């Protein structure tokens, strides 16, 4: 496609157009010329004929005048005389005058016998409007021929002229073709360049102006191409540089570029270090001799100075620098020192130093290019520095994490071992508790049984002190038994050895069953227990009946224990949508708010309970909580002591402050 377009170049187009033009010119001009030739011959003939006619007419008039009444009644002598005069006209060969009846009246002397080929003109002679006769004149044809010849000659000249003009035109067109052709070549070249093909060159086009133009064109394109190559190189290095995150790699690229590709003789990169001075980070092209003579530190001084400016500092005249440097530079053959500061905003990263053997190597536009490049270099260096720092940082972090991780792993391992041990211990503990509680139960059976029997007076009446002491033994035995039972329960629950046997059950029935177990205690204390059944029909709940009974037992045991004699205890059941709620309300002393949070903890007993000498182990609520939570329920307590809302205790007619223990069970 592209190729075809190059071929239909303007030169070729003009060329074919030129030929067409010439063809059309020939086709149109030649018939035109022929036609105009014919027209002209005809015109000459007309002119001649008219001329003769006019002449004849004037002769006729003349004769009419001079012969008085014309030739009606002619004075023949005079007529003859005038005829003679007319015939003096050298064109006139012979004149004959006749009357109306065509009888000859007079005639001239015949100049020639043979009148054939002569032009014969007959005209009437009028006198006062009346035709009086005729004049017949024979003209020599030579004049007509002469006239004609001269006309044809004119035409010929015209044709030749035209032909010459045409040839000229053709010649012009052809030469034009050639110019077009050559301009076309240049245009083609320009187009190619325009399309970005900078390798385009125009072949030699001769030594004229066009040839010179082509030469200039080639030189221009060559420079553009060189610039372009340099630019591409700079761009590529810039890109590679910005992508590289290793400072040394970047510096390698830069010295390779400047010394290898941009014809610098040597190059250094000075970077501002952590302290005040420079770090030389890379150099190339400097001789050992120069380096050994401390040349670099002299260059460094120059660089340091250039850092004060924010633009490149170019030195190609060293007369004012220190003589040591002067001689060293001369020795090193350096004619130009360029120092370009590497800047990121106001931050000075360092200096790019480029040296050349010839001060023409880096004209201003190249220095400009280098400056742009230096900006990229600064960015790349900054990136690399940042990267270096983050690398360092992440390395440190990694080390720290490693340490932390190993620490953590060790801690985890310790924890795992501890956990295993704990589990073993837990099992051992509950095994131990099971065994111990069994071993405790047998002797306790005797103690409880005998003290019961003694107290019941089965062995005879006891005196008050005996009764009191045995009662104490009996009470403490019960306490011990409670403790053992609760410990056993809790340890089983905590060891995860309790498996719930969940089944649908009638909560109300369970509640009544538990209350039934308290009948003796209740009777002893003269308490009233009332079950306030739900307003709605309670749905059956799914729970482990034995465990649920244990929860109720523990709550009721507390209610009975902590309520003064004669008060009322209410168990309330209600359907709360997703859950069924059980409230146990008592008429006791209530719970201080500071005890509220601890009550469900193992072995926690409110100071008041201890002070009042109410027997307990502090395990009942902990067990109840464990069981309720195993069922997916919630347990909590409320007490009006310190609480603003005493509303829910309004049921207590005896005015005891009381406590309310509530738990829920999912349906």
């Amino acid at each position, binding site marked *: 496609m592209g190729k075809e377009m190059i071929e239909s170049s303007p030169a070729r187009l003009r060329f074919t157009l030129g030929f067409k033009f010439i063809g059309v010119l020939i086709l149109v001009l030649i018939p035109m010329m022929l036609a105009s030739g014919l027209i002209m011959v005809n015109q000459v003939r007309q002119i001649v004929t008219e001329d003769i006619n006019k002449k004849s007419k004037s002769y006729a008039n003349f004769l009419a005048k001079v012969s008085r009444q014309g030739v009606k009644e002619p004075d023949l002598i005079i007529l003859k005389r005038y005829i003679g005069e007319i015939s003096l006209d050298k064109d006139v060969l012979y004149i004959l005058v006749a009357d109306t009846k065509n009888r000859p009246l007079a005639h001239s002397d015949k100049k020639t016998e043979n009148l054939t080929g002569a032009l014969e003109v007959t005209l009437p002679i009028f006198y006062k409007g009346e035709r009086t006769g005729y004049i017949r004149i024979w003209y020599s044809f030579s004049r007509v021929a002469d006239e004609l010849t001269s006309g044809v000659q004119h035409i010929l000249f015209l044709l030749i002229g035209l032909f010459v003009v045409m040839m000229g035109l053709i010649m012009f067109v052809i030469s034009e073709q050639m110019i077009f052709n050559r301009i076309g070549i240049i245009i083609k070249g320009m187009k190619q360049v325009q399309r970005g093909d900078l390798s385009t060159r125009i072949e030699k086009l001769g030594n004229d102006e066009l040839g010179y133009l082509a030469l200039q064109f080639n030189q221009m394109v060559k420079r553009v191409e060189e610039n372009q190559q340099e630019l591409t190189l700079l761009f590529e290095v810039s890109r590679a540089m910005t992508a590289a995150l290793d400072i040394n790699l970047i510096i390698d690229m830069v010295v390779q570029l400047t010394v290898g590709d941009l014809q610098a003789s040597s190059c250094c990169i000075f970077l501002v270090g952590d302290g005040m001075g420079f770090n030389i980070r890379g150099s190339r092209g400097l001789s050992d001799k120069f380096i050994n003579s401390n040349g670099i530190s002299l260059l460094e001084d120059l660089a340091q100075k250039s850092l004060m400016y924010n633009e490149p500092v170019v030195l190609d005249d060293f007369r004012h620098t220190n003589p040591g440097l002067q001689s060293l530079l001369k020795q090193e053959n350096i004619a130009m020192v360029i120092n370009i500061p590497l800047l990121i905003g106001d931050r000075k990263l360092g200096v790019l130093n480029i040296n050349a053997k010839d001060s023409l190597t880096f004209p201003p536009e190249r220095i400009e290019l280098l400056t742009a490049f230096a900006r990229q270099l600064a960015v790349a260096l900054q990136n690399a520095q940042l990267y270096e720092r983050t690398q360092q940082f992440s390395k440190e972090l990694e080390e720290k994490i490693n340490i932390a991780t190993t620490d953590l792993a060790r801690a985890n391992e310790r924890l795992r071992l501890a956990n295993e041990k704990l589990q073993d211990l837990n099992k051992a503990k509950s095994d131990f508790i099971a065994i111990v509680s069994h071993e405790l*139960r047998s002797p306790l059976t*005797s103690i*409880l*049984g*005998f003290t019961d029997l003694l107290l*019941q007076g089965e062995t005879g009446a006891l005196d008050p002190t005996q009764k009191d002491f045995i009662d104490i033994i009996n009470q403490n035995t019960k306490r011990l038994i409670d403790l053992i*039972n609760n410990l056993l329960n809790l340890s089983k629950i905590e060891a995860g050895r309790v498996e719930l046997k969940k089944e649908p059950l009638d909560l109300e029935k369970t509640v009544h069953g538990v209350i039934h177990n308290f009948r003796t205690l209740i009777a002893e204390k003269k308490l009233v227990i009332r079950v306030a059944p739900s307003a709605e029909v309670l749905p059956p709940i799914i729970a482990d009946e*034995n465990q649920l009974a244990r929860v109720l037992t523990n709550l009721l045991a507390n209610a009975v224990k902590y309520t003064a004699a004669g008060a009322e205890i209410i168990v309330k059941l209600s359907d709360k949508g997703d859950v069924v709620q059980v409230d146990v309300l008592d008429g006791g002393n209530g719970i201080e708010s500071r005890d509220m949070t601890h009550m469900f903890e193992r072995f926690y007993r409110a100071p008041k309970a201890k002070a009042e000498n109410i027997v307990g182990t502090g395990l009942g609520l902990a067990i109840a909580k464990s069981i309720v939570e195993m069922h997916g329920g919630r347990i909590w307590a409320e007490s009006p002591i310190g609480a603003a809302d005493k509303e829910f205790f309004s049921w207590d007619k005896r005015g005891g402050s009381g406590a309310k223990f509530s738990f829920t069970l999912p349906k």
Partner: protein
Amino acid sequence: MGKKVLIVDDEPGVVKMVRFLLEKNSFGVVSATEGEEGVKLAAQEKPDLILMDIMMPSIDGNEATRRLKDNEITRNIPIIMLSALGQEGDVAKSLELGAIDYIVKPFHPQELLERVKKILG
């Protein structure tokens, strides 16, 4: 004469206490302090009720119960377990073997008496 109750328990204190309680309430009491002896005595004495401890040397209360239930002569004697093992599993196991009731130690003598009376009418 009242009904006869056999008590099998390795704890002499318990045996003594139960004996006192029952005799006071006009029951005849025989006792054994270990399982095998208890099984033998049951066949001999044909008591109206047996109170059986579980954790005992030689054969335990459950094994003794099984043997008693295997024997034509003793099969129909009601057995109440009296045990310090109070877990559900323990109770269920004994009831399965044919025990009629299960009382967890320690117990109030009054409670035992009530249960015994309930069975022996």
